[in-house]
């Protein structure tokens, strides 16, 4: 089992690591990150990174995909613990920047002190002043 940390949260998945590879069930990768290997390429939402012809077998074996290799191929950031038991998957600056430049406010749900999750989008119809602070 490995732990996957993504902007959606934390997931546990059956996986095997070999060198720089992380073989995961394709459904686990999709659930944790939104990325899927499709006939048209490696895709999330409307974004698809085409795979070179004949290379699919490097990235897929049966129901499993090499998540690490796919992320590197698609220019998406990732980091792993030394023992490869924890993997952190991110989103490229190119995708982030284009999302922000669309001016559609990225949505997120975060817990209050009681653990209740609030989403920014819960407040559509109001003007929202989204602000940060910290104790440190």
């Amino acid at each position, binding site marked *: 089992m490995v*732990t996957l*940390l993504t*902007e959606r949260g*934390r997931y546990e998945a059956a996986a095997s690591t070999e060198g720089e590879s992380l073989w995961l069930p394709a459904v686990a990768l999709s659930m944790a990150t939104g990325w899927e290997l499709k006939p048209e390429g490696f895709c999330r939402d409307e974004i698809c990174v085409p795979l070179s012809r004949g290379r699919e077998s490097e990235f897929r074996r049966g129901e499993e995909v090499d998540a690490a290799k796919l992320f590197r191929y698609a*220019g998406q*950031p*990732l*980091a*792993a*613990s*030394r023992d490869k038991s*924890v*993997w*952190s*998957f*991110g*989103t*490229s*600056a*190119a995708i*982030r*920047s284009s999302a*922000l*430049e669309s*001016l*559609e*406010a*990225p*949505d*997120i749900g*975060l*817990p*209050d*002190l009681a653990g209740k999750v*609030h989403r*920014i*989008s819960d*407040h*559509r*119809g*109001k*003007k*929202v*002043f*989204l*602000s*940060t*602070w*910290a*104790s*440190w």
Partner: protein
Amino acid sequence: MWQHLYDELKDYGFMVFAVAMESRGPEAARPWIEAAKTTYVSVIDADHRLAELYNMVNVPEAVWIDEAGRIVRPTEVAGSGDYFRKMDRVTRTLPEEGKAMRESMRTRYMDALRDWVKNGNRSEFAFDANAARGHVRKQTEDVALAHCWFRLGRHLHAAGRAEEAEAALAEASRLHPDSWNIWRQMGDMKLEGKPNPDFWGRVDKLGARRYYDKIDMPGMP
């Protein structure tokens, strides 16, 4: 800090969504939230996910979002400025000149926010689409990777793997040196909330560069 403003403006269709960047978890934020008796939304972001989504580097920063969910002011400093650098580092008090600057910046920022809440897109402080896009901070792939390392470091820290956590967080800070959030949160985790003795040294190293970016509003220094 925002409760008074929220009370004043809530009947205009306004919400404050305040996010505490606290990787040590909700207990680090609880005393402040309870003391402020907040009635607006007040949530905890242990992984600094908001900083990742909105390209934030400091606190306090803010984003203004209209009724349709569109950003009318992208991430910027929420009314603070570098006057704090003139603070007496022993007594933590500001000289008169610094207090005046703090007051003037806060007032200008709050007045701008009031103006937008009451006048919407007619407010001079709500950017049109082109101006808003022009104010989106540029992001680099190093910054995107830094957020991965930060998230990994936070997880390892919470799992008790302190030495490896520290290395992961240091890597995040190396990749994203402009993020005071990452650097300060890293110190806070290591020191478990005690003041960071290296803070002023790192601030002083900025020299003529700003700690808080300039706020693009008339009259802001």
